[in-house]
């Protein structure tokens, strides 16, 4: 392994690699933010919907969680264009990851809402809070604290899954590095490098997550 040669190859390809990293971050960020918003809605419907709504949303969630992300991405890219929805590879990939993220966030939101004792809702009702007042002032702040560790975990899974977008031609970090490999044949070194960058991204997410967790922890 020639360290200097590797560093040189990385340095001379810094622009496309940084571009790839930027794409990875953008894909992950978009999917996590949209997936979380959609996931909160999924969690709410799973918790408070009538039996019909719950059945539909349960099918949605189970289906998405039971399908490999790989297949989901291919489906969003190819099937949607067959039915006339034209998405770019980037859009289709983000869409697939958003759906995937929403199903996982939906489950953890449902779980946390159900873990909050019924007495919390009853106390909120007894001081005249409506459903929305109860949800936003009493349930959501408690649920968010509960789901934070699992949610951070989901976020890192999305970052890892974003590499799968390379199969539909989105030049994210992994594909940008692969393009350097195809020119330089430094496969071992550069895959190691790519792995290390992904590790750094997820390490940062986890550190930030821990920090927020400590910030919002309740004093005892």
């Amino acid at each position, binding site marked *: 392994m020639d360290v200097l040669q590797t560093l040189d190859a990385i340095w001379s390809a810094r622009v496309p690699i940084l571009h790839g990293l930027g794409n990875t971050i953008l894909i992950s960020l978009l999917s996590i933010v949209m997936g979380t918003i959609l996931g909160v809605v999924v969690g709410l419907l799973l918790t408070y919907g009538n039996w019909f709504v719950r059945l539909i949303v349960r099918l949605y969630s189970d289906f998405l969680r039971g399908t490999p992300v790989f297949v989901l991405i291919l489906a969003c890219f190819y099937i949607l264009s067959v039915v006339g929805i034209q998405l770019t590879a980037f859009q289709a990939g983000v869409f697939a990851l958003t759906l995937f993220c929403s199903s996982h966030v939906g489950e953890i939101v449902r779980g946390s809402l159900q873990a909050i*004792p019924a*007495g*919390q809702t*009853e*106390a*909120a*009702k*007894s*001081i*005249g*809070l*409506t*459903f929305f*007042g109860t949800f936003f*002032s*009493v349930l959501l*702040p*408690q649920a968010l*604290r509960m789901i934070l560790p699992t949610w951070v975990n989901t976020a890192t899974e999305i970052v890892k899954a974003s590499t799968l977008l390379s199969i539909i031609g989105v030049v994210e970090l992994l594909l940008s590095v692969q393009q350097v490999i195809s020119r330089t044949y430094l496969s071992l070194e550069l895959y190691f490098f790519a792995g290390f960058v992904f590790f750094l991204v997820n390490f940062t997410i986890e550190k930030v997550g821990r920090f927020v967790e400590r910030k919002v922890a*309740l*004093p*005892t």
Partner: protein
Amino acid sequence: MTVPVLEIRNLHKRFGSVEVLKGIDLTMQKSDVVSLIGASGSGKTTLLRCVNLLEDYEEGVVAVAGEQIGYVERNGKRVRLREREIARQRAMTGMAFQQFNLFPHMSAIRNVMLGLVKTRKMSKDEAYATAESWLERVGMADRKDHYPGQLSGGQQQRVAIARAIAMNPQLMLFDEVTSALDPELVGEVLSVIKGLAADGMTMLLVTHEMQFAHDVSNKVVFMQDGRIAEEGSPDQLFYHPKSERLAAFLKNSKF
């Protein structure tokens, strides 16, 4: 005659096929303090929960200050009110729970302020001042910035009572508010309730503290199998029970 603070007529409540309340009648005037006593499962909690519609009821009328709670008669049909109306009605009564149910993510004063801001639409400053004076009243002013997790059971319950009473309800409901407390913490909570009674608060309470029920109430109601089996003045019920069942119950309660 003035409108009663609470009027319950022929109240029936079922859980599935099991009838838990089998026709309850109870009227309370302003400043009345009524204690509900009775064996476990006799329906005391359920009765309290019907009054602020934490439970729906199938038949009969619950009226607070002359207004039927939860339902209206429309063309001879009984229709449940809208969520927003029910929320408004719930705020007419305050409730203190056995498990306190303070909001764990809010300091004591924010617990008390929440309903004042959201339901009573007070400004933050006004709510803060109101909440502070009620915390003062229950002896918790010095802990107003503490979170529930930092308070003892007795302290939590006093904050919970302040949270309910700060809403200025017409009627206060207490469901075994000392049952989850260590014995040495019971007194501080009971003395808060006695103070409220002395101020003329109208209160309906479920309790297993017989001496307390005797001292604080002007009427005691003995429930049995979803019915009111006996009611009257504290002296009459505790010292001259008419039924065998009440006498046996009192004996078991070590009164």
